[in-house]
């Protein structure tokens, strides 16, 4: 992993409109702040190397290095990454008035992990009106406040940075694939600090096809409705092609074609749909309302699920082969699209003096992904 400073971060990410606002560079120093979904640099910083650059999921991300670091296996570009098993899951606890997306698996697991002291705190995503805001929670009641999909970029990793600054270890984090990449880079101690301790005891990644620009999307919704009434949002599986906004007493459907223009261009360079670098990955279960797809990737992820099921917090069942295949195809498609975009913009495996890349992937893997036949 090549690590540079804030100057390079601005050149490579901000200037190329690749910042998603994941929060990885925020709350590390006085220079980067995130406000209403946008990360900004307040003053120039002259340090040649910084955690801001090292953690960023959009500059010099070496997927092979990350894969070896986490799984002790090279990155092979498998559609849904490395995993132990994939199941259907749902929370067993009904929470009236709290609108999860699908089965409530994430809230149930984080809540359980906090109760069981598997983690001491969790970096989650809350909301102020419509704007997603990071929140470091330390008890399971607070987890429910943060439940529900936001569909907008949130600087959640900054809550992890804040937790580290406060001296927390054994933290959990829930985030999108880009945020899971940032978290893994963070856990790799890229600046080689001698006093480094891995602060993350649990990472739950979310499935993500794309996110929406917070400001554009919230401005759009503000024009359309009273946003204070919105209680949850969901994108039902195809062929619905709509976003459902749930308010206290009604549901409102918005065609996806209306909100697609708010997808930040950086989402189109992301090759990861299922959060491949997390302990657990959670998403929708197509065709089975009220259930999630749960990908168990790491041993500690498997242990947590096993305990949660044993204690009756989580219910799991088999995943249908047909669903798995659909998930795999969609993931492969995202990978291929992202690599083509990276290549066309010269942002993949750039060689030569002073050349920097968004991502580094072994050439043979690139070839394999691009050869994927997609529908």
């Amino acid at each position, binding site marked *: 992993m090549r690590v540079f400073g804030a100057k390079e971060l601005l050149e490579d990410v901000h200037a190329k409109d690749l910042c998603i606002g994941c929060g990885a560079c925020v709350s*590390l*120093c*006085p*220079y980067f*702040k995130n*406000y209403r979904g*946008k990360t*900004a*640099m*307040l*003053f120039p*910083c*002259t*340090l040649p190397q*910084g*955690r801001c650059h090292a953690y960023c999921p959009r500059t010099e991300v070496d997927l092979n290095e990350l894969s070896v670091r986490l799984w002790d296996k090279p990155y092979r570009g498998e559609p849904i990454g490395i995993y132990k098993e994939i199941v259907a899951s749902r929370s067993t606890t009904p929470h009236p008035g709290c609108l999860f997306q699908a089965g409530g698996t994430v809230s149930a697991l984080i809540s359980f992990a906090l109760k069981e002291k598997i983690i001491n705190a969790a970096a989650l995503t809350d909301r102020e009106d419509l704007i997603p805001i990071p929140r470091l929670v330390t008890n399971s009641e607070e987890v429910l406040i943060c439940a529900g999909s936001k569909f907008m970029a949130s600087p959640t990793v900054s809550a992890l940075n804040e937790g580290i600054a406060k001296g927390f270890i054994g933290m959990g984090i829930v985030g999108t694939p880009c945020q899971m990449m940032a978290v893994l880079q963070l856990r790799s101690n890229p600046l080689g600090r001698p006093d480094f301790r891995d602060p993350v005891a649990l990472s739950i990644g979310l499935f993500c096809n794309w996110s929406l620009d917070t400001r554009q999307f919230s401005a759009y919704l503000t024009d359309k409705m009273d946003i204070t009434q919105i209680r949850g949002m969901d994108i039902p599986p195809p062929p619905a092609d709509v976003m459902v906004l749930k308010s206290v007493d009604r549901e409102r459907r918005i065609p996806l074609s209306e909100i697609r223009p708010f997808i930040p261009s950086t989402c189109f360079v992301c090759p990861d749909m299922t959060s491949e670098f997390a302990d657990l990955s959670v998403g929708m279960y197509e065709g089975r309302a009220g259930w999630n797809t749960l990908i168990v990737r790491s041993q500690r992820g498997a242990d947590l699920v096993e305990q949660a099921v044993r204690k009756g917090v989580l219910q799991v069942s088999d995943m249908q082969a047909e669903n798995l295949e659909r998930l795999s195809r969609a993931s492969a498609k995202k990978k291929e699209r992202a690599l083509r975009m990276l290549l066309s913009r010269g942002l993949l495996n750039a060689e030569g003096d002073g050349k920097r890349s968004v991502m580094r992937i072994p050439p043979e893997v690139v070839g394999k992904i691009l050869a994927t036949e997609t529908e």
Partner: protein
Amino acid sequence: MNTLRSRSEHTPRLVMGNEAIARGALEAGVSVATGYPGTPSSEIIENLARVSAGRDVYVEWGVNEKVAMEVAAAASFAGLRSLCVMKQNGVNVASDFLLHLASSGTRGGMVLVSCEDPGALSSANEGDSRHFSRLLEVPLLEPGSFQEAKDITKWAFDLSEEIRNVIMVRSVTRLSHASGSVVYGEMPETKPHAFFSHDGDILDPMRGPVISGPVEYKHKKQQEKLQKAIAFFEESPFNTYTGPDTPELLCVTSSAAGFYCKEALRLLGVEGRVGLLKLGTTWPLPPRLMEKYLRLTDKILIVEEVIPFLEENVKIMAAELSPKIGAKVLHGKRDGFIPSAGELNPDIVIAAVAKTLGMTYGSPAATYTQRATQAAACVPVRDLAFCPGCPHRASFWSIHNVLRMDARQGFVCGDIGCYSLGISPTGFGTLKTLHAMGSGTGLASGFGSLGRFGMDQPALAVTGDSTFFHAVLPALVNAIHNKSEITLVVLDNSGTAMTGFQPHPGLPVDAAGKELIALDIVRICEAMGATVRICNPFYLKETERILLELLEKRGGVKVIVLKKTCALSPERKGKKDFNMFVNPAVCLGDDCGCNRLCTRIFKCPGLIWNREKTVAEIDDIICVGCGVCASICPSGAIQRKEIT
């Protein structure tokens, strides 16, 4: 002890040019003196304010130069002698009224003193207001010494009453702010009675209504007054000639440039070859006098600062007189013998005279140059900076940060005051426009109306409290009335700080410290219909929170008043709120990752970087204990201890 009240003396005193001007007004029996603070003019009104009680002089800091001029004119119309003082920019502000006043004429002697700033040492421009005398068609006098500063001012009142019109007296920084020898004259003991006669015939200048019409009639009268002034100028002792009877070269000069000419001629050793005509009555030029001296030689060099005002007038006169005096070669700014911008100095004049005479004037010895360069290298490089404890540093910190966080490429339109420095690193480069008094809000009002053309950048303006009253009010009315989307930040430091803490309408005192009515900026803005917030800028988080809230808020004009008294005000000076210190156990120095935020970016002069220990430290001599740096230190190493 203030010497302005002293009786006449025979021995000279060392006084500042502005003090001499004030004394001249007192010797003329001035009753009303007004002005608006502006460097280098402010000390004239301040000095008069100090002696006002004992001498029955009414002294007033006007809300702006135009109103100050109107207040002074009212005194003249009521038969009193009045003085109005401003810097060069002020004449522009007053000029609308002045054009009418010059036509209506005056009654009691009335003098406008404009103190100007060639080289813009303390200004946002180096405007030359002498051209106003030609535009307004009123006489212009330019003192060329400290004695003349007093004497010309005094005489200007007499001249004003002779011709019944306002007289312009122009000084410059090197006269107003330098000190020289002045012999004081007698003080009058009259106590005039104010009465405005208005029942006479419309054409009766002393008893009728005072108006600028009938325009053509009054205009002709005004020009007759100028002819009368010329008659006085022909005999004026303020126009002097020194030099041989038949010089090779005639230098024509005025004002502080006269000092440089004298020095240049002496240093060149050409006093026996070059004549020096120093004019004190520079517009209109007296033709007989000019004929007498232009006749002396064929080669003429006009030496003056800023615009070629004297040069052009001398050239016109030379052309008119050419049948009598023959053709002349005239050098000056237009042919590049004298630079057309910036201040003059003896070296520049030496070069110009030497060039005109075809002499070579050797540059200083190499050893001298080397020593001078070495000496200069010892002076540490220092940026222009806000004072330690200045509220503006804290205000700009917050404004800068919220604009970056907002990330819509918002910007701030600047205005005139200490906070003009907001354009430089000490204000984090926050200001993006800087023009005249009040122009920040006017420009923001314009930017805030461009939403219909797709502009979505937040437009902000800053103003000081004094500038708010001076010229921001009309711009604010404009913005509110026209539904412009702007945020106005009032940097209220409780005084006209930049020019020496003169009071303004927001404060309950006058120029002499007597009680007046204070106008409340917050209530004014609220009454005008703006959304108004108020905050102490030293509370950075709260200031940022409010600014972000206002930036988000759509629907017209938002105002935030950031109120904190200037660190140099008598109220705060020498009084620390906190004892500041850096906890060496907490300051990680270069290991912090903050990249020296305190000494590299925030850069209060009270913070120093210890190069040996590579940690931040407080300079206890400089620090005024405002406590703000403790709020910006990310590791909490800079700490404050409340002084109880």
